[in-house]
């Protein structure tokens, strides 16, 4: 038998934002590696599509709006009771906002922070519950962004929400290391997803070209991020915690 350290057989991983983009790509890759996936998203039809596109069996889905932040920890306990305990958690759901600061609206700020940041904290709180994660520990991966590391005009709110995930990653990594729970994040550059397409609608051709040129390896695919997420979930990264893995085609190096 060939040893595959990325083998997820018998392992259950919960993925938020499972209906599209990075979340969907992560669900697919995990299922190909033998994991059973607990897919979470606020789109019922999107979840049905996701389940149809997965390999293997044992997958479940839950239609849930992560804006109900205070309901999240309880929901995880409920799902663990019905679906089984989790080895891993991936928070890929995200809300984007590009808007100049003079148009500041507390409402849209709260919306972005709820989905991107507060939900991450509540998911971690739910995951660490002994009724949810396995006794031997597990691995949590947040999806941050290069916008959490460098700046972009108009991205203040989005950047705040994603930079906060890096702070959360580092401190919670220390808090949960004694329990064998590793916490890391992936910081993607611009990836061709529906969210990117919505943002790109606001740019002219010149701006689009500039964004592409800023990535020495070109724009990324959702599957590129999924591969990094899976590396951080698997035993291949047994000694990695509190780390930000930047997957950005060279964007922040230039």
């Amino acid at each position, binding site marked *: 038998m060939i040893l595959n350290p990325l083998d997820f057989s018998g392992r259950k991983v919960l993925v938020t934002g499972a209906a599209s983009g990075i979340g969907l790509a992560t669900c697919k890759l995990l299922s190909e590696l033998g994991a059973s996936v607990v897919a979470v998203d606020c789109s019922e039809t999107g979840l049905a599509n996701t389940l149809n596109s997965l390999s293997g069996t044992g997958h479940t889905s839950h239609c849930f709006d992560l804006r109900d932040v205070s309901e999240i920890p309880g929901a995880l306990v409920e799902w663990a009771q019905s679906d089984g305990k989790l080895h891993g958690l991936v928070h890929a759901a995200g809300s984007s906002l590009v808007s100049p600061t003079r148009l500041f609206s507390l409402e849209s700020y709260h919306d972005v922070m709820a989905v991107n940041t507060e939900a991450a904290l509540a998911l971690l709180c739910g995951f660490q519950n002994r009724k949810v994660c396995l006794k031997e520990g597990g691995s949590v991966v947040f999806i941050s962004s290069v916008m959490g590391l460098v700046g972009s005009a108009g991205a203040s709110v989005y950047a705040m929400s994603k930079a906060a995930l890096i702070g959360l990653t580092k401190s919670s990594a220390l808090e949960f290391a004694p329990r064998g729970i590793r916490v890391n994040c992936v910081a993607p550059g611009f990836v061709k997803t529906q969210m990117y397409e919505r943002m790109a609608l606001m740019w002219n051709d010149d701006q689009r070209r500039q964004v592409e040129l800023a990535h020495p390896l070109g724009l990324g695919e959702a599957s590129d991020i999924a591969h990094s997420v899976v590396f951080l979930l698997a035993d291949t990264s047994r000694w990695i915690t509190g*780390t930000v*893995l930047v997957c950005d085609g060279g964007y922040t190096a*230039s």
Partner: protein
Amino acid sequence: MTQNICTLITGASSGIGRETAIKLSDSQRILLHGRDLDRLEETRQHCKNPLDHYIWAADLGDVKQIDTSLSSALSRNNIKISNFVHCAGTLHIGPLRLQEHDATIDLFNINFFSAVEISKLLIRKKINSNILHGIIFVSSTASKFGARGFSTYCASKGALDAYMRALAVELAPDVRVNSILPGAVRTSMTESIFEDVDIINRMEDGYPLGLGKQSDIASAVEFLLSSSARWITGQQLVVDGGRTVNISG
């Protein structure tokens, strides 16, 4: 494995380099570099299918010889290099007032300048036919954080990482260049730090996931060289059991 396309691993006779060579030998041919022919042969015997792998014995401290020595090793064995993993490294621990210029030059030659010479050689079309597509420098968390007595070591690893970022931009999209920043892993290079039980215990307290294994670093090398990391370039991947986020350590 019909073509002689190899991954070059420097410092392959011991520690992280040796472990990485053995792990990667499952899936690719390796050109094992080290100073000592017997120890390289010993590493080769632990690789999968030992006869598939090659040996390049050279002292990287002798930077000016690298170009001739490596290009003749490549032509002699009819080898091209697709990936270059720089694991060779040396460590002089000592307070600033005792830092000798010659020792600093020696440390920079092995940790940094040799990587420059090898990278330069491997992008030459005449010698390596544009075969190179991945470079990994095994740097250190000492590249980002200070430690008493480590001044020149920190500086050499900082240079390596700055060079890595610039190369990543210059060589994209043909070659991806990244570095791995391990925390303290017990090897022959770090043996002097680990010789005292008290020091081991104190160090262990600073590592939330405990001390690391050589295989933890080799796994990260394997990931960054693989197509799974095809969109990662110019990055420092910290593999340190949480040590550098631990401000109480």
